[in-house]
């Protein structure tokens, strides 16, 4: 028997490029489906690695975050520099750096490339969207450009997968090549200061020494502060300014001058810029009136689709889940194991999968809007509005989407580059009133605020509930940006890319990735929380399972309707008792003094606790505690007032009396309002917390969101009940 060949350690190649250059498209085209996504430790930056072969040699491709420059201002921006310099713990240093640039916008794209040339790694330039450049009349002499820059240059069309074989070949050759020798010529005084700084500090890559001088208050300075040992960077900068090298301007001046010289004679542009499609479209799409109208229509279509088009699919998933649950329950003998499987695991899996339609629909829209270039226009139109909350236009779509569901909303915050803006958006997204709150609102409004009230009351209350999130989310974001997420506001610069047809491949890939990411990275956490709450609500079980089973037997064997009804009541009675003596039930009883000031009794308290996995669970739990069996929240959400009037849970809620004073109803108007307000503001949604954990890379932020939202919800509910009691007595 021969030994299998020892696994060859793949060469590492890193992809670097500006946003909107098709970097991710190239990454996907090179790696196919063979990739892994993770997080770099301690930062919110995603690490994407793919695998491919170039000329038969195995390669690992690292997709670095899209950026306009390598002058890190934060730990997040430092990741790319650390990876390329081989200083990122656990990552091997790339042997080749592929810089992907937009051929129709070479000057600005080459700024980043000019920095990449100084990192001591062989560089390959991928000239993407060469077709767009040609259609604009831009002619590029690839060979000459390669000579001028001193690196291999390959023209490609990543979205049509053209030029990739050539690129692979060049990458494979570059492994053994020497680092680039031609770099921008910084003035002599600057080079002298960099050399002096390096000899003082020892063991410091030249690039970082440059950054120390150039980035005033930048992250390189912050990180290397302990090593500076009294070297005053201000003195260096002062000396340079005196010699005509003003910091930081010297860098951009030197690089852009170098780029312009390199491009002279390589790139021919038409003397008269022709009116492009982008010009014509932008006249309409960023127009004061028409642009706003188109924007509103687009947003309405997106929002409406998440709400309505997802509905039939969600219903299908729910009924599928019930069918599987019923089938399993029929197959196995009744007992704790069967209930765990049906009510814990199968319901839990259903609760995860049910989010997929909304996620897939939202991401189809986002992928299309982003790929065609409209996303930047949306951010442009909304920026003024969002800037009042300390955010930027890029936060608008995530927050709007959160009104359907915070899970896809939070996932879509990845378009926000600034870490603080992104965290603030993630943290307030669950305050927007999502569709899972609807069953709670409808149940309580239908039960207490519709019959015998002026016709406008239900609508007004519903409007008030939605407004609560719309008002509080910006306020909380504003407060967060001034406290916990305080820091220098980065300059808002937003590139408005050229419009193009969205590529089916790019859109499909994006949608698939988002769905998979959710199932794979958040699914297990959601499932675990469902099972945990199920256990807490069902144990200790005592002899209740047998007694319930016996009572159910009696229901089936009942000879007439009266007997059947009596037997059913027995089942509901037993189930309610069972929950009351469960762990969660006991905790609820102990916690009653805490929820009393909100106008709640222990049953509402237990139902609120049990709704930790998902808000709508509160409806089902109330059903059990009020001895009406399990109530389906979807049914409540779809019911009209007439159906609600006959709903057993609605009737039971109206009838409910305090344990110690059986003449006083539990649900007064203030109690109903306080419960609604609590659910409008709390974070009882394991999926949201799981996705937050995935997107921020730590448990700290979801924990913070849960705590602040629960406190906010409690205080608001307290206020509503106490003030409401003064009016409604």
């Amino acid at each position, binding site marked *: 028997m021969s030994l299998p060949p020892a696994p060859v350690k793949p060469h590492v190649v890193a992809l670097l490029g500006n946003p909107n250059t098709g970097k991710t498209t190239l990454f996907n085209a090179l790696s196919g489906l063979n990739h892994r996504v993770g997080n770099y430790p301690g930062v919110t930056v995603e690490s994407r690695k793919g695998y491919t072969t170039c000329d038969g040699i195995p390669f690992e491709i690292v997709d670095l975050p899209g950026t*306009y*420059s390598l*002058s890190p*201002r934060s730990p997040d921006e430092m990741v790319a520099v650390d990876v390329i310099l081989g200083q990122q713990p656990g990552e091997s240093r790339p042997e080749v750096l592929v810089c992907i640039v937009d051929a*129709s*916008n*070479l*000057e*600005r794209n080459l*700024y980043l490339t000019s920095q990449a040339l100084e990192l001591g790694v062989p560089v390959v330039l991928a000239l993407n969207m060469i077709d767009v450049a040609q259609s604009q009349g831009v002619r590029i002499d690839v060979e000459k450009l390669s000579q001028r820059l001193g690196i291999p240059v390959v023209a490609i069309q990543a979205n049509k997968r053209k030029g990739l074989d050539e690129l692979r070949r060049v990458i494979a050759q570059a492994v053994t090549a020497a680092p680039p020798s031609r770099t921008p010529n910084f003035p002599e005084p600057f080079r002298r200061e960099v050399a002096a700084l390096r000899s003082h500090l020892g063991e410091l890559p030249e690039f970082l020494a440059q950054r120390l001088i*150039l*980035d*005033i*208050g930048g992250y390189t300075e912050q990180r290397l502060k302990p090593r500076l040992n009294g070297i005053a960077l201000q003195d260096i900068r002062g000396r340079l300014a005196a010699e005509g090298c003003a*910091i*930081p*301007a010297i*860098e*951009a*001046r030197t690089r*852009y001058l170098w780029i312009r010289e390199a491009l002279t004679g390589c790139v021919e*542009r038409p003397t008269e810029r022709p009116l492009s499609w*982008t010009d014509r479209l*932008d006249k309409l799409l*960023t*127009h*004061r*009136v028409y*642009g*706003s109208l188109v924007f509103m229509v687009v947003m309405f279509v997106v929002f409406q689709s998440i709400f309505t088009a997802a509905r039939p699919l969600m219903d299908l998933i729910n009924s599928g889940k019930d069918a599987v649950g019923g089938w399993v329950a029929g197959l196995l003998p009744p007992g704790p194991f069967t209930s765990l499987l049906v009510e814990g695991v199968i319901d839990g899996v259903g609760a995860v999968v049910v989010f997929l339609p909304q996620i897939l629909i939202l991401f189809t829209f986002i992928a299309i809007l982003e790929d065609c270039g409209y996303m*930047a226009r949306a*951010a*442009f*139109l909304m*920026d*003024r*509005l969002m*800037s009042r909350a300390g955010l930027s*236009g890029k936060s608008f779509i995530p927050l709007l989407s959160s009104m359907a569901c915070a899970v896809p909303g939070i996932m879509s915050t990845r378009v926000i580059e600034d870490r603080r803006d992104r965290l603030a958006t993630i943290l307030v997204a669950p305050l927007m009133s999502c569709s899972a709150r609807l069953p709670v609102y409808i149940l309580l409004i239908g039960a207490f605020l519709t019959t015998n009230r002026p016709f406008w009351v239900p609508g007004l209350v519903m409007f008030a509930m939605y407004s609560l999130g719309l008002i509080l989310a910006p306020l909380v974001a504003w407060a967060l940006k001034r406290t916990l997420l305080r820091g*220098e506001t*980065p*300059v*808002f*610069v*937003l*590139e*408005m*890319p050229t419009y193009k047809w969205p590529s089916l491949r790019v859109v499909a890939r994006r949608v698939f990735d988002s769905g998979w990411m959710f199932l794979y990275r958040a699914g297990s956490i959601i499932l675990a929380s469902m099972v945990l709450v199920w256990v807490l609500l069902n144990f200790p079980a005592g002899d209740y399972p047998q007694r319930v089973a016996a009572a159910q037997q009696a229901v089936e064997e009942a000879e007439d309707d009266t007997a059947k009804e009596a037997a059913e009541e027995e089942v509901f009675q037993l189930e309610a008792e069972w929950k009351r003596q469960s762990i969660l039930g006991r905790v609820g009883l102990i916690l009653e003094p805490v929820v009393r000031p909100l106008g709640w009794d222990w049953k509402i308290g237990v139902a609120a606790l049990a709704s930790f996995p998902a808000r709508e669970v509160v409806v089902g739990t109330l059903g059990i505690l009020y001895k009406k069996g399990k109530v389906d929240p979807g049914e409540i959400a779809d019911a009209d007032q007439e159906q609600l009037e006959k709903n057993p849970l609605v009737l039971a809620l109206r009838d409910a009396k305090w344990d110690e004073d059986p003449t006083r109803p539990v649900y007064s108007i203030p109690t109903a309002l306080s419960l609604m307000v609590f659910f409008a503001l709390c974070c009882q949604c394991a999926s949201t917390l799981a996705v937050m954990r995935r997107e921020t890379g730590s448990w700290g932020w979801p924990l913070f969101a849960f705590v602040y939202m629960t406190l906010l919800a409690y205080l608001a509910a307290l206020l509503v009940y106490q003030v409401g009691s003064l009016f409604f007595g």
Partner: protein
Amino acid sequence: MSVITLNDLLPGQCGRILALRGELRTVQRLMEMGLLEDETVELITVAPLGDPLEIRLRDYRLSLRREDAAGIEVQLLP
């Protein structure tokens, strides 16, 4: 003649950048995006709510806020 800034241009007007003023980190970022002395910029349009601005420079379009544009001194080109 008083100095005008990018912020003062009307849609369709072009200007040549004379100087960038303001916080150095802001200036650094704007320069990285290609806003340098002697470059020509055109104000394309203004967002419906009055902010931000959309400009054209170096073969591409960029959006930036008025407060940052106010630090960019320009000479109005005919």
